[in-house]
């Protein structure tokens, strides 16, 4: 196909469009929903709205021990918890969850 051949030759002699991924990373878009984090635990009132609205059951709120537990590998980054939180405790970060060997839980404790 003549039209495609010039394109193919151009691709052959130009630099690749892909990134050399582990060495060269694209900065995440600022609006991306990468992961959630309980950033301002001191404001948390442990109402449990985030737990009840989580579609993946990734958040557990324990009022007695003043602990919020997040399972990052269950979380689907829908950021419903960020929207429903009355005290705006939860932040959404644009970086994606890093791969890990074990599915760990992250505990956020109010001091």
């Amino acid at each position: 196909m003549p039209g495609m051949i010039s394109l193919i030759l151009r691709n052959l002699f130009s630099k690749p469009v892909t990134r050399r991924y582990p060495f060269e990373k694209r900065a995440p878009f600022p609006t991306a929903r990468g992961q959630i984090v309980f950033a301002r635990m001191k404001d948390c009132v442990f109402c449990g709205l985030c737990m009840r609205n989580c579609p993946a059951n990734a958040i557990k709120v324990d009022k007695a021990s003043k602990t919020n537990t997040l399972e990052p590998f269950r979380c689907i980054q829908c950021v419903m918890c960020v929207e429903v939180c009355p005290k705006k405790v939860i932040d959404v970060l644009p970086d994606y969850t890093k791969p890990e060997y074990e599915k760990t839980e992250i505990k956020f404790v109010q001091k």
Partner: protein
Amino acid sequence: MAKTVLTFGPQHVVFPEPIQFKLKVEDEFVVGAEPVIGYVHRGIEKAFELNELKKNIFLAERICGICQSPHSTAYVLGVERLMGIDAPARARYIRVIINEMNRLHSHMLWFGLLGDAIGFESYFMQVWNYREKLMDVLEKITGNRVTYSMNAIGGVRRDISDELQKEINRVLDFLEEALKSVDGVLRDYTMVKRTKGVGVLTEKEAKRDGAVGPTARASNVPYDMRMLGYDAYCDLEFKPVVVDTCDSYGRAVVRWKEMFQSIELIRECLSKMPPGDIMTKSNALPKGECVIRVEPPRGELFYYLKGNGTKNLERVKVRTPTFANIWPTITMLTKGCEFANVPVIVLSIDPCISCTER
């Protein structure tokens, strides 16, 4: 001549997902076919009943990886109708923009897969390279490349700012140019040879077998759910793309033209989008039953919802476009096609098996 039964799939290079066709072969020609599905059933319809209303939006999105936006649109439209609320005008326009961008990237993906299936690797990579620009802008708008989570009951969750609108326009201009630079593929000798006259489905057969989407429109049946005017489609100038070649080539042409139609529709939406709210708040609970039909990239998507005035729905039934298109595929296959053409014929309906089995 003795008949032989050959199994095609469930693992095959042209299928990204598992489906099996038991093909009855006479010499090199297929004379009978039997589909076997059920490899990736996930029980999502039951999960709909157990989950709460708001959480179901994310479940609906996960029925299909590529056309997830129409799935959540259909679900949300149904719940809104049962609750007796309407999304604000701006939200309806944003939904159309996301759905059309979804169609655009799905069709580009399909063209890449078609190139891959007939052995045109460089075309596959070129189209997917262009598609990446669209995926990036979708990530900027919605926050995620694949699962957008834009729809909410009563509107959408994120607004499209003026800056992003300019960016969308820039990407659309780029895509229009880029796609035109590779449009020679539809005139390419090998492509035409591999698709023209392959997988014929006449207008009568398409109507009889209930074909939907580009499969029906390539058989001269102007069957497009966007004509129903859900969301903002009622305000847009829109006419379904119809081709009368009735073969795999026609299906490619329909998708090709629909990509440019989608670009036009997104531009029209961006120019007509009114300012204002993007969410209608309501505490009503759904009661009664309703049927919603929307148009994902692959054809008609059918949702039946039944609410009983509680937080949970009593029944959700989903019929996806590939399910409707399986029987027309059997009709195409059993007309005595060559065995080597089976991948192209099956691919021409753009099968999505995980959606079909839910």
